[in-house]
């Protein structure tokens, strides 16, 4: 649990972050969104004290972040930045070992951890461990960056536009991978992004920041159906909000008993993708299959459309 109270940052006369209160539940993902200059990065960087707050407090698992030296605090918090920030003169293994080494782990424990993380991130320890960052692809570098941040098993992971430098295909893969790894490790994640799709895809809760003030902190669905202000709707976009809403639910919730001819869809697919598939195939219903390919029911165009309009 991260508890942020009255957190404020002023530079001279300008207030960059203005009295923000935020509760990030343990094991959840919170996305901080906002236009550039909204103070979202500054807010994130005050959590691990890369920026020292002008006022207000941050507690992680009940403990004030000011209770220990900033560098000791940061060793307990994972931090991932855009462009990965890997140390170019250190191998992948050495990069990942950075924090465990500073914490005085034994060599055996560090080696085991490196191998475990590389496998978790789909990298081959035999091939990649001794490579330099420059010898990896952009997507691989990004994964090593996250692996390094998670090396010492932090309970909190902070990410500042972590996928910003990746091309769209690799970015989509990185996002789903992060979601899967987070569900496995139960790490509390705070991610700063200006990409609304990314926020809606990853986050359990979204904090909307504008001019340093927190406009709304809510579940993604609530942001669409009950925006706190016109600025929030402007930021999340109104033209495609019905589709965005559909993207937050899976086929499972709109499913009915029975089966349809022809098209088959997976139960874990988002309603938005299911709608697209139905339109593309020119049919009004599709059979829904479970994880093992067994038929579990059917979904109709009407049922999906009803979900998209359900919140009005």
């Amino acid at each position, binding site marked *: 649990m991260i508890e942020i109270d009255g957190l404020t940052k002023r530079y001279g006369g300008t207030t960059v972050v203005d009295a923000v209160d935020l509760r990030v539940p343990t094991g959840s993902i919170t996305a901080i969104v906002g236009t550039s200059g909204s103070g979202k990065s500054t807010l994130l960087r005050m959590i*691990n004290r*890369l920026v020292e707050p002008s006022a207000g407090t941050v507690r992680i698992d009940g403990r004030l972040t000011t209770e220990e*030296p900033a*560098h*000791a*605090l*940061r*060793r*307990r918090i994972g*931090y991932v*930045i*855009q*462009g*990965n*920030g*890997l*140390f*170019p*003169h*250190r191998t992948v293994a050495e990069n990942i070992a*950075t*924090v465990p080494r*500073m914490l005085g782990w034994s060599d055996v424990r560090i080696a085991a951890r490196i191998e475990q993380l590389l496998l978790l991130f789909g990298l081959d320890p035999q091939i990649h461990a001794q490579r*330099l*960052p*420059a*010898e990896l692809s952009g997507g691989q570098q990004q994964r090593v*960056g996250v692996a*390094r*941040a998670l090396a010492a098993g932090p309970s909190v992971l902070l990410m500042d536009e972590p996928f910003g430098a990746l091309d769209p295909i690799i970015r989509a893969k990185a996002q789903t991978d992060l979601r899967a790894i987070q569900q496995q490790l139960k790490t509390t994640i705070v991610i700063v992004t200006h990409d609304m799709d990314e926020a809606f895809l990853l986050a359990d809760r979204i904090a909307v920041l504008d001019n340093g003030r927190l406009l709304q902190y809510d579940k993604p669905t609530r942001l669409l159906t009950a925006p706190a202000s016109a600025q929030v709707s402007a930021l999340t976009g109104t033209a495609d909000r019905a589709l965005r809403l559909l993207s937050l639910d899976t086929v499972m919730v709109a499913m009915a008993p029975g089966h349809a001819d022809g098209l088959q869809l997976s139960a874990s697919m988002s309603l938005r993708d299911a709608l697209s598939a139905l339109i593309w195939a020119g049919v009004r219903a599709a059979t829904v299959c479970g994880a093992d390919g067994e038929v579990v029911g059917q979904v109709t165009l009407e049922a999906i459309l009803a979900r998209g309009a359900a919140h009005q």
Partner: protein
Amino acid sequence: MRPATLLRTAVWLSVIAFLWRPSAFAAVFAPFTHDGAPAIYDQGDLADLALAHLGLVLFATALSAVIAVLLAVVVTRGPGRAFLPMSRSLVSIGQTFPPVAVLAVAVPLVGFGSLPALIALVAYGLLPVFENALTGLAELPASVLEAADGVGMDAWQRLWSIELPLAGPLIVEGLRQTLVISVGTATLGSTVAAKGLGEVIIAGLLSDNTAFVLQGGLLTGLMAILLHDAIGRIGAYVLPRQG
């Protein structure tokens, strides 16, 4: 054997052979003497002088490198940043000052011998290392430095394990320039009685013996080339790969 290795070995062997048995090379230098003057420098041991020359150069370069890197580290962080412009001009002045003038100023203060030569060489060698260390430290990628802070390195760990290794190639390049300049400049030290190869050149000039001038000049030049080459190779071995 590759041509570069072959050439390098040949140069090293001829220098060592010449310093070990200078008299064996008398026939080579005889055409440059006249009136029966000696073809090989005979007022001291050439190997001794070359070693003294090398020692002075290495010591002076090590001193200027330590001072220059420390200075560059201090002026690239914290309150030291305020001194960046001042230290830049101070070190530039050190280099615009002719070494002979530094010697002339130093002798009344510290007397004759190796000390005034050392002072001149150290002052003269500061700039290349300082400039390069400054560029190397000031132009590190911001994302790498932010990552170093982000993973919880303290200022010392960040400097030692990230900044200096990454600035290393540039610092070594500056060290190389300083070494080459110092080998040449150190010959002037002989005018204030510092032991070195300058003695051979000066003796040749005074007695109108071109063979002496050639021996001093060649040894100095070859020493500069061999050091330049050696530093490059040591650097490649010591410095981290960066992909």
